[in-house]
């Protein structure tokens, strides 16, 4: 489904990610883990078109998408739950969902809004509330609901558990399991490496912009050397 081949993304003259390659297959949940500053967010932002890679290619279902705009990628079926949610604080919960469905027809958009309000009951309760007044956990639910509005085939999530209380972290990771489907691939970036690898089919380890290891999720979990050397434990 997703093939990232040798991407290098720079900020000015500094390469934040160098020669990074990864794949996500249909129905797979893949995680990308690494310490702070490893380049995980840069990698995701490059995939969704917010950043242009200096080198490398990105393909989705065999089609090159390297230089496409985020809205084009959303139409193709790629959606991102950004780091720190980036919900529109001055818009209501409902308005946030409506914007996220802006590429859909009016009737489809209303249908999807109703589905999201059913999937996340707290959002129905708070639908007219300014999103800026939501708690961290509620905001994360809104951020995920926004990304799901277009029923994406590839769902990218950047640090979904960041800043959340333990009970909300459990909620988010349980939700990931419910979002799995044979038609949907998921790529999750997490600093909470252990938790991410517990739910993932496969994992990639990123450190200072370079891919240092990869493998099956359960297999990587048993690698204490990995956690000591690369994940700072």
């Amino acid at each position: 489904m997703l093939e990232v081949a040798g991407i290098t993304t720079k900020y000015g003259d500094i390469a934040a990610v160098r020669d990074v390659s990864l794949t996500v297959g249909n129905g797979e949940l893949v995680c990308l883990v690494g310490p702070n500053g490893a380049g995980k967010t840069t990698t995701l932002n490059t995939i969704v078109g917010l950043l242009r890679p200096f080198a490398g290619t990105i393909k989705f279902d065999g089609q090159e998408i390297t230089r496409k705009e985020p809205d084009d990628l959303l139409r193709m079926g790629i959606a991102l739950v950004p780091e720190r949610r980036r919900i529109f604080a001055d818009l209501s919960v409902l308005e946030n969902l409506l914007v996220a469905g802006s590429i859909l027809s009016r009737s489809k958009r209303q249908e999807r809004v109703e589905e999201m309000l059913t999937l996340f009951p707290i959002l129905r309760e708070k639908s007219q509330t300014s999103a800026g007044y939501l708690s961290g956990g509620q905001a994360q639910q809104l951020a995920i609901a926004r990304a799901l509005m277009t029923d994406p085939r590839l769902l990218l999530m950047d640090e979904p558990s960041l800043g959340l209380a333990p009970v909300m972290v459990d909620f988010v990771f349980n939700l990931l399991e419910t979002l799995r489907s044979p038609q949907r691939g998921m790529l999750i970036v997490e600093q909470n490496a252990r938790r991410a690898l517990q739910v993932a089919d496969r994992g990639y380890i990123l450190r200072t912009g370079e891919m240092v290891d990869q493998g099956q999720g359960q297999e990587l979990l048993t690698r204490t050397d990995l956690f000591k050397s690369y994940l700072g434990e």
Partner: protein
Amino acid sequence: MDLFFQADLAQQLIDGLGRGSSYALLALGLAIIFGVMHLLNFAHGELITVSAYVAYYLSVSGFSWWVIAPAIILTSVLFSMITEFVAFRRVRESSDFTMLLTSFGLVILVRAAFSHWVEVKPRNFDKASWVFNTVKWGAFNLEVYDLVVIVVTLITLLALTYLLQRTLFGIALRAASEDFNAARLMGVKSDRVIRNAFMLSGLLAGIGAVFVLLRRGQADPGMGIEILLMPLLATVIGGLGSLRGAVLGGFLLGILEVLFRSRILPDEYSHLTDMMVFAVIALVFIIRPQGLITVRRAERV
């Protein structure tokens, strides 16, 4: 407070609201552009310059204000969209400073163009005949101009509120103003939302230009930056990025101007009005550097 004082004060407040209406509409246009591009567009005043020359040529050709007014609005919208396409779109990925320089460049370009192809001296044209008429209402002697301007501004603001709150166009624009890249992730096309912002900004400037030119009846190459000063300050004093702040700032400055000139300062010092208004603005910035209204950003944990 005696009746005469009340009537006098009420008239001055209405006069201030009338003056503040054009400030508010121009400030709103600036705030909309700032929201999506983080650009304080100094070329915004040139929409009025170009519109003024269109008004001049239509006026000397014998057209009435029933034709001139919509022509001003249309000119403003089109010129705003042209500046976006020709100038600002080319430098959108550049630094904020480059975009600011581009806006200054447009100011100089417009001034030079009209100075060269028309003339440096102002060109006068007919003001609307009813502009200085007054109407008596009880103890009040109100200028028809002020009443018309206030009513039209209120209608415009109501329509704008509906557009921004109840349509996907408006919701997408508000989202892009708050977080442009997050809006792109939601499928909002960056070219389209910026073009729409310039179109809307041009429309508001056009209506503001009609108010200004109805009374001014003059086109000159350097008028743009002069007219833009108060709306620019209104945008900043209201809180950069806040549309409500821009409107509040505009009306506040209009009222302050009139009150200083007509009530607070003695007649022999009325020429110090602008200085006093700027002093109040400076005070606001000292007390509230972020402006009167700030946008909510905090997320509870």
